[in-house]
């Protein structure tokens, strides 16, 4: 027991003391935060309103509809002047309307020295369409038609309320559940892949270095394997804890800097600039809804399931990786055994993605029971609410499979690490398991 602790200690310290680990661990949260904040920051940069657009409306009917926004400053001008083509002209573009657009829908043209920006085009088209729609409605001669149509056009926003067991209501959001579930699933997937591969690498290093003969004369091969697996897992835990803490700090600092409505700003940035103006109140209420949906996520359940799936899934794959690393002599030989594993991992991720559509469907259910896919698929389902018996069963199966696989991998590992020369086949591995 003492020896396995010494091995864990070394495997852990060796990796944690590496420069690459320290740099990656400290830098990653900033990179992740940058992914969130840079687009946010860039979107605030745009809203300066110094994009000047001249409007030459020869019909005189449309220019009142095209008004300045936070982004565009609209300047009506009487006529198209030749100096507009000069570089000294400050206008980004010139909109020319030659004719009645009802009769001649292609009578509007935007001139620009550069390629016309899509947001400007979208804005102009939207305003003109709206204007023409009103014109056409008026032309129909039915009184109050516009009001009638406005009345008909109601935007429905279905709010989703979830009942818990005692019948209490809580606001939920399918979108939030999807994002939360998928993020957690992806995290487990990546962790298992990266750290599992690390286990294999480390096992292969010892084998090809030939130090393993000395090692197994001091400790049991099983102790060596488990020490490695646990040591590397602790490195992963440390990394995730550091990332979690740093990300929380950075995000809260960032939120404070961008003001409380950073979330709504993101939402606004994602929608068109024109719409942001009109739809602002709706977005604010939607932000509040998202916030309450986030607050209503089953955090405790998700946390427990995350840790269990994380440990269970990692143990499963790490022991497989260790067995593969011990069996092969060279990196290239490992491909043969890695292939089926990678396919299963990718399948698990896809299964998780499709399970989002129907978190209680047969695909989701079975994939969250099969141990090779359950660590990824089960956590994905948790935010949608999963019956407790399913969670329990899934975890029992997962950990039972862990015990079986660790035992199997231990057998293969023990024989494999001292086998040099010939590339092993699946048959050989099966034979090794049966060795005394």
């Amino acid at each position, binding site marked *: 027991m003492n*020896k396995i602790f*010494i*091995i864990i200690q*070394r495997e852990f310290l*060796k990796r944690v003391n590496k420069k690459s680990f320290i740099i990656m661990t400290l830098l990653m949260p900033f990179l992740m935060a940058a992914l969130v904040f840079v687009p946010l920051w860039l979107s605030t940069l745009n809203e300066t309103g110094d994009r000047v657009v001249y409007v030459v409306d020869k019909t005189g009917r449309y220019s009142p509809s095209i008004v300045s926004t936070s982004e565009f400053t609209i300047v009506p001008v009487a006529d198209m002047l030749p100096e507009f083509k000069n570089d000294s002209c400050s206008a980004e573009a010139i909109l020319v309307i030659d004719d009645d657009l009802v009769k001649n829908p292609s009578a509007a043209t935007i001139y620009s020295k550069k390629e016309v920006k899509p947001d400007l085009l979208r804005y102009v088209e939207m305003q003109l369409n709206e204007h023409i729609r009103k014109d056409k409605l008026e032309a129909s001669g039915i009184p109050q038609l516009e009001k009638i149509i406005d009345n008909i056009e109601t935007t429905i926003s279905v709010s989703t309320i979830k009942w818990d067991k005692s019948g209490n209501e809580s606001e939920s959001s399918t979108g939030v559940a999807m994002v939360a579930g998928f993020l957690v699933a992806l995290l487990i997937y990546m962790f298992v892949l990266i750290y599992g591969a690390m286990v294999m690498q480390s096992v292969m*290093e010892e084998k090809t*270095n*030939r*130090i*393993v*003969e*000395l*090692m*197994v*004369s*001091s*400790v*049991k091969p099983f102790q060596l394997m488990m020490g490695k697996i646990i040591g590397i897992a602790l490195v992963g835990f440390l990394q995730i804890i550091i990332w979690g803490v740093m990300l929380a700090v950075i995000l809260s600092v960032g939120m404070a800097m961008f003001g409380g409505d950073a979330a709504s700003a993101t939402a606004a940035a994602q929608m068109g600039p024109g719409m942001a103006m009109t739809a602002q109140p709706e977005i604010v209420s939607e932000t509040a809804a998202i916030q309450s949906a986030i607050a209503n996520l089953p955090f405790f359940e998700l946390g427990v399931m995350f840790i269990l799936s994380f440990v269970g899934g990692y143990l499963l794959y790490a022991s497989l990786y260790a067995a593969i690393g011990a069996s092969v002599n060279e990196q290239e030989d490992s491909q043969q055994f890695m292939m089926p594993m990678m396919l299963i991992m990718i399948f698990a991720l896809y299964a998780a993605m499709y399970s989002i559509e129907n978190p209680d469907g047969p695909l989701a259910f079975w994939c969250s029971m099969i141990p090779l896919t359950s660590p990824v698929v089960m956590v994905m389902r948790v935010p949608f609410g999963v019956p407790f018996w399913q969670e329990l069963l899934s975890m029992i199966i997962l950990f039972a499979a862990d015990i079986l696989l660790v035992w199997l991998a231990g057998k293969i590992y023990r024989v494999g690490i*001292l086998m040099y020369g010939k590339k092993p086949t699946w048959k050989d591995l099966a*034979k090794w398991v049966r060795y*005394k």
Partner: protein
Amino acid sequence: MDQNPIPPVPPRMEDDIFLEARHIVKAYSAHKALDDVSIQVPRGKIFGLLGPNGAGKTTLIRIINHISMPDAGEIVFNGHALCADDVQHIGYLPEERGLYKKMKVGEQAIYLAQLRGLSAAEATSRLKEWFEKFDIMPWWNKKLEELSKGMQQKVQFIITLVHQPELLIFDEPFSGFDPVNAERLKKEILELRDKGHTIIFSTHNMASVEEICDHIVLIDHSKVVLSGNVAEIKSRYRTGLYELLTPNAYLTAEPGVYDIIESKRLGVGCRYLVKKADALSNSQLIAHLAEKAEIVHFSEQMPSMNDIFLQIVGQK
């Protein structure tokens, strides 16, 4: 325990046996790596484990090191059945040597010593002593890959014996050492024996066997084909050939006493190679010869271990 004396020639009774392998059988699928192998390693002696490549030496060493389990048979270590904790009393220098390339020399020596049961503090102080002794202290904080091959071998050697094991197993210890360091290593091994360590020494190098081994066992095709005390074995494989130098004398063969195999006239006299009849003792032969000629030089042609090795292994 003593009812089944297995080896063809059991060591003399007064020998205190430190390690005994009894009827070890180990098979890998179709191939039998060890077939009813028994050895007795006397305490405080250097025991040579010999055999051609693939004979099963490494398999036996792994079983003694508790790395693999025999299919049948048992290992008795210092009077009890070998168990996992006994590895703390074994120092093993594998033929395939390797250490962590990227790890600092001192750090990994401490790590490996800890795995053999030393505390970190004790490992450090003992290792420093050894490093001083082998003049490699300046490399303590270097990564292993920065060291020369010979220096890595020294580190490995130190790691093998830092926990002061009662039993030391050296598998081809001299490979990779230059003659100067090989000599030094040999001295060190003999010194360890004199301090009471029991040593199992596996090699192909027959010259070194004659120099340092007290007992040997020869394994070929998974079976023990020869074992015993080196001097005894040599006398067992006596050729009955003698070298004889006489001034100005002509010998003729004497049937029933000796044959002349070869004669050569030298400047100062004659050199003969004679074969003694089996019934005669050495002194009887000398008596016969002395009657006929003045003897300047007389010596028995002892077989080298190499000859014996070739003779036995070559038969198969």
